[in-house]
């Protein structure tokens, strides 16, 4: 599971002609959550999915995670089927809710995926130590989740997602429930982590500045039916170099404007400020 394993030129994620239709229960109309999606994500690339409610951005992420299966089309992760990639634990995942097990300590939560893979105890302990250091929670290894703030819980969830050194990190609005200050700090930390681990990130968000700050490319989506309308390249330079000044950079504002216009290009969009409220 090292980056050198993959064949050159093989994308981390490849979606081809993907459509997802949900058959609504009770005989009501079925819903086309996604249609006509083609998308390649390169190894190590940071891609955000943005769009209003019902644009299918979460569904797209869930298809990559094999939490849903496409109605038509193919989803490939590192050249394998999404299912095989899940079975091989090629990706780590984090949701808006940290989803920590409340009866486990922080350490035991981080070790969970390793434990399920029957990694030896000493190795798990050591890996948890590395991850705790990485997310700055070494002092909280023995704490219970309810003793941590929301931001700290989300850090634990990210550490857990990185436990098996995946080459792909899937994140579904991981900072959606955090306050603005914590959120910006977490964005900076995530950039550092992705830089150091070299893993590709697919990041679902409804915040334009967040998408722009983090991403190499922002995938703009629109609803009814959910589809990709535009892909905005950001180009804020190397991830490790981005800092708080980047948020005041001309290039940053240019990209924010580009994404905003891409979203506005479709008048039925509710998003204007990037602070829309959305559950999923």
């Amino acid at each position, binding site marked *: 599971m090292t980056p050198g394993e993959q064949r050159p030129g093989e994308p981390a994620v490849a979606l081809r002609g993907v459509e997802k239709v949900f058959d609504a229960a009770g005989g009501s109309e079925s819903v086309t959550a996604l249609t006509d999606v083609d998308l390649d994500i390169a190894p190590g690339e940071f891609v955000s999915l943005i769009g209003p409610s019902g644009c299918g951005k979460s569904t797209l992420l869930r298809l990559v*995670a*094999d*939490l849903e299966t496409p109605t038509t089309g193919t989803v490939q992760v590192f050249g394998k089927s999404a299912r095989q990639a*899940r*079975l091989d*634990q090629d*990706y780590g*995942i984090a*949701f808006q*809710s*940290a*989803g*920590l*097990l*409340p*009866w486990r300590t922080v350490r035991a939560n981080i070790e*969970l*995926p390793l*434990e*399920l*893979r029957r990694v030896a105890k000493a190795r798990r302990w050591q890996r948890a130590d590395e991850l705790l250091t990485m997310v700055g929670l070494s002092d909280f290894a023995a704490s*219970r*989740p*309810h*003793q941590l703030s929301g931001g700290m*819980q989300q850090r634990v969830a990210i550490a857990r997602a990185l436990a098996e050194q995946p080459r792909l990190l899937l994140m579904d609005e991981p900072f959606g429930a955090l306050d603005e200050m914590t959120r910006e700090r977490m964005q900076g930390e995530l950039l550092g982590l992705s830089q150091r681990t070299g893993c590709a990130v697919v990041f679902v968000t409804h915040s334009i500045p967040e998408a722009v700050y983090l991403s190499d490319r922002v995938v703009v989506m629109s609803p009814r039916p959910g589809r990709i309308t535009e892909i905005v390249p950001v180009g804020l330079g190397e991830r490790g170099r981005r800092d708080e000044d980047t948020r005041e950079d001309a290039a940053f504002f240019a990209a924010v404007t580009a994404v905003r216009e891409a979203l506005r290009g479709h008048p039925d969009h509710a998003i204007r400020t990037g602070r829309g409220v959305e559950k999923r």
Partner: protein
Amino acid sequence: MSPLTALRRMAAPVVFGTLLLIAWQLFVDLRQIPRYLLPSPSAIGEQLGANGSDIIGTAWASGRNAVIGLLVGIVAALLAAVVGMWIPLVQRLLTPLASAVAAMPIVALAPVLSIMFSATSDLPRRIIVAIVAFFPVFVTTVRGLTRIDPVHAELMHSYAATSWATTRVVRLPGAVPYVFNGIRVAASLAVISAVVAEYFGGLQSGVGSRITSAASNTAYARAWAYVVAAIALGLLFYLAALGVERLATRGRGAEHT
């Protein structure tokens, strides 16, 4: 909680209870209520003192029946709930049956079971307690086992975890607070049913038998003294269950994260 606030929280009910007892005593004394109608707290207190060792002995006998029945009921309920989780058919069969058993009053069951078994056996009482204790534990355990946080379910799916791993890592620990909630309810019911079961003949060893025999001899103050013992026994069970519950769910915080 500091000792002072604990004291303050206990003060109000203690003062209220004391006032109630004083009012009772004054009412009986001043209105000269006949003893066979309502004995005074002091008369009941006298009887408590006079029958001290017998009260402890009978409370022990009733308490033992309640404990044994309770444990059997809990174990049966946990087994049934876990088997029901694996085999849905079992759960579909058991749930209505358990509800039917819960709807059956112990007063209806007790005389029948007393006749079925010999009059010198504690078994019918223990069976009654077990049946009564079964239901709340079964219901809460089933609820705890079937309820799973969707995020936890998706995480386990993303880890390609087997269904047994999901059960072991998420469902069973997640059900613990539910199980102990049911046990707390069952513990109080166990004492009630153990005492009431004694009202219908059989061994004259428990608090319930003493209450009936004292009452039929018009020794009302003595009957009340044994009622006090039954109340104390019920409280003891409740507090013990509460303590075990606190112990089992400590460190989880008030709510799930």
